[in-house]
């Protein structure tokens, strides 16, 4: 595997920051009720989406989850259309019909977030069949978290992907919780990666706070997949920095635990520090980058707020025509 270029590293940082600032904004917007419904911030987990999506091409597919903003942004989604969707506007990715949990874009190979935990996992198998039949080396990356790994569809899908040698990379973002359920209590084996043995596929553990580490393991898995060697399971150890949703105080979990992760495993803090140490970027450059990102996020809010609501008449017409 080639060394990461300076440019790639800077891009990693930029996308991590983009996700973080976007998510922080959505939380704010949620708290003032400009966004409603369910919102599941990706704060703390950014390095996984960034590392994984950097390892694939635009033409490759991703399958996302209810906590999907990070995946979309890392795959190249437009912040304006995302924010517009969160505000339910006609200019949003789903024309305001989907909201946070259903963002998708065929152009970018985003096969959809999902309101059903694990709901995308079987769909990844179909994407895998499609890639295999098409035989152009395309792959699919399927994201899900620890909670989803206990649902039956995980087992069915990994088994099928394995027996048919499908080019799908399963990236489990083990953020240690499924709402209030600790993964230590809900998963019978210590590491989810161990479950790969049940399908005779590689099972790899990676530090989910390190985008480069994630990039490396996903790149390896993608290579196997493109060579027709079938799926892999990657467990990225991470932590959900906030509650399950913005209004969840997460009082079911240990305060010190949360503090530890926020202090030691924050991809924003750590990766900034690393790139500064490696002299890949300067503090001034970071500041400029941050400013650009904040502007872009603010712009997305402006775009969203100024966008029209979907037309009620058109909606009613459509319904009648179904």
């Amino acid at each position, binding site marked *: 595997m080639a060394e990461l270029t300076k440019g790639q590293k800077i891009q990693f940082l930029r996308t991590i920051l983009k996700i973080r600032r976007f998510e922080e904004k959505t939380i704010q917007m949620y708290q003032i009720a400009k966004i409603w419904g369910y919102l599941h911030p990706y704060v703390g987990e950014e390095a996984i989406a960034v590392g994984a999506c950097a390892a694939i091409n635009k033409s490759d597919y991703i399958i996302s989850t209810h906590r999907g903003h990070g995946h979309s942004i890392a795959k190249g989604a437009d912040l304006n259309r995302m924010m517009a969707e969160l505000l339910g506007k006609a200019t949003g990715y789903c024309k*305001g*019909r989907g*909201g946070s949990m259903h963002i998708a874009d065929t152009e970018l190979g985003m096969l959809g977030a999902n309101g059903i935990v694990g709901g995308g996992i079987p769909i990844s198998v179909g994407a895998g069949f499609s890639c295999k039949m098409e035989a152009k080396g395309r792959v699919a990356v399927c994201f899900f978290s620890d909670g989803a790994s*206990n649902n*039956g569809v995980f087992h069915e899908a990994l088994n099928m992907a394995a027996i048919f040698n499908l080019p799908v990379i399963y990236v489990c973002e083990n953020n240690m919780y499924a*709402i209030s359920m600790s993964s230590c209590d809900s998963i019978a084996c210590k590491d989810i990666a161990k479950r790969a043995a049940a399908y005779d596929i590689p099972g790899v553990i990676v530090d989910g706070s390190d985008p480069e580490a994630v990039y490396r393991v996903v790149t390896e898995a993608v290579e196997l997949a493109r060579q027709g060697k079938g799926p892999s399971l990657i467990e990225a150890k991470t932590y959900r920095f906030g509650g399950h949703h913005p209004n969840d105080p997460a009082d079911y979990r240990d305060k010190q635990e949360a503090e530890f992760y926020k202090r030691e495993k924050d991809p924003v803090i750590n990766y900034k520090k690393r790139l500064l140490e490696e002299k890949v970027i300067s503090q001034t450059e970071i500041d400029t980058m941050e400013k650009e990102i904040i502007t872009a996020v603010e712009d997305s809010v402006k775009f969203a707020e100024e966008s029209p609501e979907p037309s009620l008449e058109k909606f009613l017409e459509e319904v009648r025509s*179904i």
Partner: protein
Amino acid sequence: MREIEYREAIREAVMEEMNRDPKVFLIGEDIGKYGGAFRAYKGLLDMYGPERVINTPISEATIIGSGIGAAVTGYRPVAEIMFIDFTGLAMDQIVNQAAKIRYMTGDNLRCPLVIRTQGGAGRGVAAQHSQSLEAWFYHVPGLKVVMPSTAYDVKGLLKTAIRDDNVVVFIEHKMIYLNKGPVPEEEYIIDFGVADIKREGKDVTIFAYSNMVFKALEAAKDLEQEGISCEVFDPRTLVPLDMEALLKSVKKTNRLVVVTEACERGSVASDISAKVSSQAFDSLDAPVKIVAGLNTPIPYNSILEQASIPHKADIVKAVKEVLA
């Protein structure tokens, strides 16, 4: 009488039954420390411990299977599916196992299982978290279907559900957990199959259940101003259905509006309409009118979401139509 929240009434029902019968236990996702997605079980883990308040992984099929296995071996589980939308993952266990096990085994295995869940739109949670799917269960022999509207009803009916020797699908509505209503301190239960006339009237019968009862009551209040007297008929349990009381009401008013939040096509409302249209053919002065959800996945945008489900105005309009 004291007034308590709908979700508090659920909690009381569950606690009373757990205290009465050590065989009753709870199982579901996030029902431990979290107290359930709508906090109806707040504090129960501390009171009853993890053996009777079983917090599970995200394994809907096996939550129901756990209920069945425990039920056929002598327990009385209350198994929770957090959103009715997620029953899609457990339909085999609900329909092919739970609903049929007693019948298929010639009464060998009894399955006193309560499946608690909630549905409905109105919170901007889009197509996969807003459905009204009672019609699926209504169609399956072997399942009782309960959809209480008030705090009083939910308490009395949940207690009956837990004592029932068969499978009960107990469906709440996400928009009414915080509604307060009078609930006596003393113990009571409500029999299945007994409708409650939530408001008496003589010009038209409005059949409504769950959250729609409130919209029907609002409509009735408005219509009263215009001199139209509506009877609001809340069946409370869809299976068994109090058909006798419904026919009695329709024979009095000669007009029926059926309200459901679910999509009209293949809905419980259609079934009620069909039953009344044929069983009270000669009493009806106008065609039965259905007020139902639109035939669409529930959109996220709240203007569209609201447009997808019935409101007071729709009921008012329908009542006027059947009276026209």
